[in-house]
């Protein structure tokens, strides 16, 4: 185990969903995936960047979470992209319903 540093350094953090956007390459790096794979998420409509082509694409801060979840589903459960897209939609619906239950204290 590393020793604790002598001086106390507190790192500042930014909230990705609110303060960050990603270029195509940045999003690939943040999601540990290839350009081809990331493109296929766009082609499937899972991600909706602004801009004309990969060189111009700009993704909002929510894209990282969506992309990582879609990639996990394809990698870890061997889902095809269509299935992953469907599961993401169903998870969003599920979350909306759970959120109603949570508001009412029934969850």
């Amino acid at each position, binding site marked *: *185990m*590393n020793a*604790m540093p002598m001086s*106390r*350094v*507190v*790192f*500042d*953090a*930014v*909230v*990705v*969903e*609110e303060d*960050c956007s990603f270029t195509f390459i940045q999003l*690939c*790096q*943040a999601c*540990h*995936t*290839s350009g081809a*794979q990331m493109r296929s998420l766009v082609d499937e409509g899972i991600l909706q960047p602004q801009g004309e082509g990969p060189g111009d694409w700009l993704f909002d*801060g929510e894209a*990282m*979470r969506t992309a*990582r*979840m879609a*990639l*996990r*589903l394809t*990698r*870890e*459960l*061997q889902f095809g992209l269509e299935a992953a897209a469907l*599961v993401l939609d169903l*998870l969003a619906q599920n979350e909306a319903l759970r*959120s109603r239950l*949570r*508001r*009412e*204290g029934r969850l």
Partner: protein
Amino acid sequence: MDFKDYYQALGVERNATQDVIKRAYRKLARKYHPDVSKEPDAENRFKAVAEAHEALIDPERRAAYDDLARRREQAQARGQAFDPAPGWPGDYEFSGRGAEGRSAGGDDADFSDFFASLFGRAGRQAGGRGAGARPTGHGPGADHHARIDIAFEDTYRGADHTISLRHAVLDPQGHATMQQRQIEVHIPKGVRPGQHLRLAGQGEPGEGGAPAGDLYLEIAFRPHAHFRIDGADLWFDLPVSPWEAALGASVNAPTPEGEVQLSIPAGSVAGRKLRLKGRGLPGKQPGDLYAVLQIALPSADSDAARAAYTALAAAFPQHDPRRALEGRTP
């Protein structure tokens, strides 16, 4: 180091075929996948299942594991504590060929020390962990991901948080060992569950002078005794007495930033929602705080209390709480 029973983790026999192992893994992976599962402790269960699959689906790794398990049993049969040394885990070598494992979105969330010790670098590479885009040779360091639980109050005040991160480090012989490092991060005010923090340059170091990767922290909140979170809004149940609900009252109500006086309008019913605008989670667009009224009936456990209820009944001869049900009985 704890020995892991990978066959038990997948619920299969020792002599299960690769197909049986694969099927067992897929079924359990769907059941416990943290993105889809609501099972308690899904994440740890999923990791255990993924690790077992990773170890057993590759014939070389499975053979090494079986050998280790057999030696352990022999030692136990002789009444000895199992000591894999000398030389373990260097006893086993792996070509990395024929590996079929495609697992478990590790990033910083790694397999056990047991797995790393047994399979080392070969296990990691063959398994494709960290997925694909790991830079080779010279290039920027990879981005890392981890998750932290913060206290509900941290988002109101902003807070400094010490987090421990475990990550695999390869020694010159290619063996992976787990190292732990601690960093302190300032949690910005207004962060919400499910959001991510980015710490620039705190991921994997770059090679050849290239920049380090970033560290992403997914935020989870520890549950709060009173407040329920829905997006940026907070909800809580506010108990009031029947007379407060009927006549109106000013009551003390908790908010995350301290107590406030809340006016209960006369004629309130159970379930009525009172909104305190902007008192939800802070942020650029602060959420609202909702108090849901609950009528708390005093118990009729004394003569005076029973007399009061009797007087109440006498005062409302026309009151029929079941009017809406009338005529609906079969």
